């Protein structure tokens, strides 16, 4: 499974989110390859799951599961949404 963490510029928030995602999927025992990028790269990238702030994720069209977050700094929200994730 490939997870792509998306943010506006691929510089700040996505890197933080990336670290969080890594630690949570480890915890949940999910096997996945994870990378981060900005919105424009994400538009053309192939991945099974896209994660990011909800208004960013809503701008993505194309295939893949999309997980939009209200608060990207909220660990609980991220963990819950990753648990419910169905691929």
């Amino acid at each position, binding site marked *: 499974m490939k997870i792509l963490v998306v943010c506006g510029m691929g510089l700040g928030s996505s890197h933080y989110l990336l670290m969080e995602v890594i630690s949570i999927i480890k915890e949940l025992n999910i096997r996945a390859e994870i990378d981060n990028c900005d919105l424009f790269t994400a538009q053309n990238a192939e991945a099974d799951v896209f994660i990011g702030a909800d208004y960013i994720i809503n701008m993505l069209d194309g295939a893949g599961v999309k997980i939009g977050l209200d608060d990207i*700094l909220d660990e609980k929200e991220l963990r819950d949404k990753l648990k419910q994730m169905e691929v």
Partner: protein
Amino acid sequence: MILKERYINIMKEILQSTEKVDTAYLKTKFKVSERTIRNDLKEIDQYIQSKKLPGLTRSKKTGIRLDVTDIIKEQLLEDLRGTDQNIYALNSEERMHYILLYLIMSDEPVSVNEIADKLGFSKNTVVEDVKKLEIFLESKSCTLTKKRKIGMEIKSTEFQKRQMYIDLFIKHFNIGKWAIISGNLKELGMKFHIVIQQEMEKLLYPWNIKTIVSLLEEIQIKLKLKYTDTSINTLILALILSKYRFEKNQTIKLQRFQLETIKLSQEYKVLGNYLDEHKELFSENEHERAFIAMYMLTNKILEQEEGIIFDDSLKDLREITEGMIAVFEQDMGIKLTELQKDKLLKGLMLHMEPAVYRMRYNIGIANPMLEDIKTKYKIYYDSASKACMYLSQQLHIIVPEEEIGYIGIYFGGIMENKQKQRVKVILVCNAGMATVRILETRLLEEFQDIEIVDYLSYSEFSKNGAQNAEIVISTVKIDYSSKPTIVVNPLIDDDDVNKLKKYFAQRALQKTYHKKYSADQIIEIVEKYSTIHAKNPLKRELESLFGNHGKTDKKLSQLLFAEHVKLNQNANDWIDAVKLGTKQLIKSKHIEQSYEDAVIENIKRLKAYVVLKPYVALPHAKPEDGVNKLGISFVTLKKGVSFGHEKHDPVRLIIVLASENPTSHLRALNTVIKLIKNSETIDRLINSKTYSEIIAEIKTIEEDD
């Protein structure tokens, strides 16, 4: 100043001993009181200082030492050797060597008494030294037979005897002086130990060395090569010794296969031309002629016309040497340029031909640097071992450590050169062309390994940065973090030179350190034992670490300056608010105007992507949008503004982030994230009145890391 015998011996201990030399050691060694030793040391110190050298140094850990270069040590030892033999006492190794020389030249058994008498040693000393001699001979696969009432005799082949004789004679005769000898040795007036003196009288004095030297010159022309000075001296001795021993009926007898292969050599053939002309020098025995040819084949060559290899059995030597270089490249994980490879091949080829003969005929070669190479330049020695394994498979020869060491020197040489690839430098100078020229000349004088790619004025530099250069040398103070910057005086002084030297030295070190590893290699290893969840980000971070030469990224508290913190401000809308943050960074030249434009443009297009939490926005754009240097600014607002975020508006804390590459800001960003994770901290930040309150909050978070 005349030195007593003991002084000389103490000095030799200090200069040569591999053990720690202190008063206790010297006391035991010379069987005198500690007081005597102290007095002796005082005298020695005076003697050394009379030579305008720094005096002896003493420390508990290292003992008594003289900290001078090896060349000066050698010179001092030489002065000591040149001192009149009456006051010059030999150390046990020298005595052992001299006894050996004496024994080799005696065709009958020699008694201990005779040696003691002839060489001026005490009988007891000789008995002790003979014990050491036996061990030495064993290492050379020879033995010493001792018979009561008859005496002792060396049992070895004539070839071994001659080899030992030549090695020892050259070692103790001090070959450096020989090179300048052009005529009559007797007139030189140099004083040698009685043993060397006797050997010279027997062997060298009857000859006009000049004639032999010019004969060897002719031979070198015919062979299209040039020997080193030491090789010439060795050859002179081999020639004379051959004749001398032959006339004493001690003819050499080479093994059949040795003789047959040497007879095929060009060296052997060329010697044939001189047999009639120089009957006084050459004997008509083919083994003797082959003996000389063998010494010609195995001695070090200084230069040789390319492609001249006469020996058919070595016609593949070039390919084999290329193979060795390939092994070296693979082992070091490097790729040499064509030019470097060419240079290495040329040097190695000169070395390889005689080396292969040496190994084939089992003629040892001394390598005084071997221990150094094996310890200090271990990577090159190890590489050379692998290359020599290939060599030994190809030519079916055994490669001794000494030879591996020499190959290691060639490898090391090219690597050190490779690291010395020119450093690209940009000069920044406001004082005009004349000053730049002076600066340039001075720099190039002091540092051969730099290349000045551009001169810029300060304003040009602020505009363009140092794109093509590795470092910036400037005569004005500049604020530039993406490349190392060194500020110097326009008329470079010694301090500046030292500063630059230090930088280049560190750079060379770091290059060596990181040379062998790439992020890919590390990832490959990590992957073997664990699961990597985010391979690409890991790779980026590793590469950034290597790029930073192990420097760690700056902390937020180190990056956030007072001038970049604006508290309790008024703003009409989000654009105003963002500009409050970016303007400070533009002022301090961390970012260009274009970065501010990009930030605003991005927010317009992507809407509120910068609003991460209630009250908090983190405006940023990409490094290529105009970042000169990693910078961060903090703005708090009296009244919140709307960024158009459905849930998190209004925004009262704005943190502008500008990073010059994708990774250098991550350490600081991590702290920012932790700061804004907690809404209470956000409250405190928004209500802070001073810069120091903000910094205090930041430091609390950083301390937890």
